[in-house]
């Protein structure tokens, strides 16, 4: 479970988040929507432990993240999976190599190859396993990124506009993947600026929030 208490985030004099309180339960599909510049990515960066808030508290599965000296890199590697709008793959490496990196950092050595092959097969990427990522299409890239996010079997999948650079078909596909992961018991945090998509997800049972003026509210 993720719990944010009174999170503030300021960049210099600019206060982007002012008092965010949010609870995300296990197995939940959470959508956060907001206009551009509202602070969605800022919030996600805090959730992902990419960044620290100016103040506030963050409980991750009951642990106070900021008070206790936790190994943030380890949490990122084992507890979270990330999907970004701009994929953020290592372009010079092949699909398989990219997918392997989280396993390296999580120090998982057993059956690495089969695991990678199975996962890539599951997402229809078998034919491009040894292709460098710079040659892939956007949809393929995002699928690779998705595999990379889930290969360590993380508890939480955090997505910052994962469909932002994809066409409709590919977007639907990614959302479908996320829903399946939710069914497998994972917690999804999905960020979008597209109110329509969020509306649809809400109708399918997602918990939805809107960020506005530094505050978050349930919609």
């Amino acid at each position, binding site marked *: 479970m993720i719990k944010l208490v009174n999170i*503030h985030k*300021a960049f210099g*004099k600019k*206060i982007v988040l002012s008092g965010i309180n949010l609870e995300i339960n296990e197995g939940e599909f959470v959508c956060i929507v907001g206009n551009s510049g509202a602070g969605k*990515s800022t919030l996600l*960066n805090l959730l*992902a432990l*990419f*960044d*620290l*808030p*100016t*103040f506030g508290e963050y409980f991750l599965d009951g642990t106070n993240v*900021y*008070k206790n*000296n*936790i*190994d*943030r*890199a*380890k949490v*990122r*590697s*084992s507890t979270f999976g*990330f999907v*970004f709008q*701009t994929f*953020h*793959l*290592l*372009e*010079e*490496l092949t699909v398989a*190599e990219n997918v*392997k*990196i*989280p396993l*390296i*950092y*999580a*120090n998982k*050595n057993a059956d690495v190859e089969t695991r990678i092959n199975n996962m890539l097969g599951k997402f229809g990427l078998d034919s491009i396993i040894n292709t460098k990522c710079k040659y892939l299409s956007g949809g393929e890239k995002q699928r690779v990124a998705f595999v*990379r996010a889930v290969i*360590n079997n993380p508890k939480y999948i955090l997505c910052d506009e994962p469909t932002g650079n994809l066409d409709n078909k590919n977007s639907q596909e990614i959302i479908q993947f996320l829903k399946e992961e939710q069914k497998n018991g994972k917690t999804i945090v999905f960020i979008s600026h597209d109110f329509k998509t969020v509306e649809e997800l809400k109708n399918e049972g997602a918990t939805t929030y809107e960020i506005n003026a530094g505050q978050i509210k349930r919609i």
Partner: protein
Amino acid sequence: MKVQLHMKLMLVKLKEYKNKRNGPKITHGMFFKHVATSVLSNRTRVLLTFLGIVISSLVFCIAVLRFDLQYKQLQLNYSNYPQNVVVAKGKLNPVDIINFKTNFSDINVIVGRLDTIGYIEENKNLSVCPIGVKENFLSGYIYDFSNNGGVYLSSLAYGRSFNDAEIKGLESSAIINKTTAKILFGTENPLGMLVRVDYESATQTNAYKIIGVIDDSFGMQSDYSDYINQYKDNINIGIYTPEQNISNKSINYDFSIFYTNNLSLESIFYNEKYIDGEYKLFTNSEISFFSFKDHEKQYNESLESFKSSYGTFVIVIIISEIIALNIFMLFSIKERIEEIGIRKAIGSNNFYIMMQFMLEYFIIGLFGTIIGILCANFINQVFIVVDSIKDAYIFVAPSMTPNIIVFFVSNSIILLTSLIPALIARKTQITDALRFI
């Protein structure tokens, strides 16, 4: 309210600083895999860095190799150098040389200009070292003419050199060159004949018995002929007859005559003072003496100046290597910033990121310097061959020491330099790295 908020923000920031995370737990396998993927994903940059290191260590190595060779050559020159030396910067005549010999009994070598007479006292093991055109005697060579029977810089063709009595002027004798002998006497070998020198005053005995003949060519310096020409207009030599019936022969050939008078051994050839109308001994100010101490001092000074000038050169190379590497690394870190962000995001800790850079550059540096050093040695060999074709003076064999020095210095530099991008990479924030790409 707002001020309060910002105060609170600052306090939290301070706390954050104290909240350092735990140290990483590293397994070797993990780490090397991490570096391997990093090298793979940066092939071009790795290759360019590699080339950069090859080139800089090559230049560095060549400089050090040349330094080593020349330094050793300098030492060799000195070690060949006899210990007790007189260096005469002015022109010498035999009188001076004999004076040196009297004043400095342990002197066994005289170093002088090429156009200086080197009178060699056969029995006293006196050698002459002409300096040549260079003022610095260090660049000269030592020739031991005493083996040639030793009159001046030329060897005796007939007869003998002066003996003690002749040098002291007790007997009047002369040594002339072959051409002079032929012209005056019609033979190369007029030993025992008398020769006269007509600039002498009538009161002086000016008949000299020929005791030796030397080869014409001094063979050492091209501007001798000019020097000779100066004398042609001022002197006459001829056959001496008891009736003072002087048979003059005008001098239109290269001549040498060394003769003794009742004062001391004299040389017309080198007696510049005569041109001014009188003869007198050289004064001390015209001749500089270098004792062994001076020699040692000069040796040390030369070594020091050599070291410092070459040292400066090497330091300049090292500094430019550091700057070049740094520019290259900073450039590559900017390019790699997204990668750093991605890696941190998916679980790499800061230590890995830091070590990634250091290990990567260490490996590249290792191979780069080895290849650079190999190339440098090859080029150095080419230099040596070219030098020997040009008749240069490198006689010492290259050694391993410069290579070892360059290897360690270069790799230390690379490791130290890689700290900068490594620290930058360590500090790079994921949000910054991923935002601006």
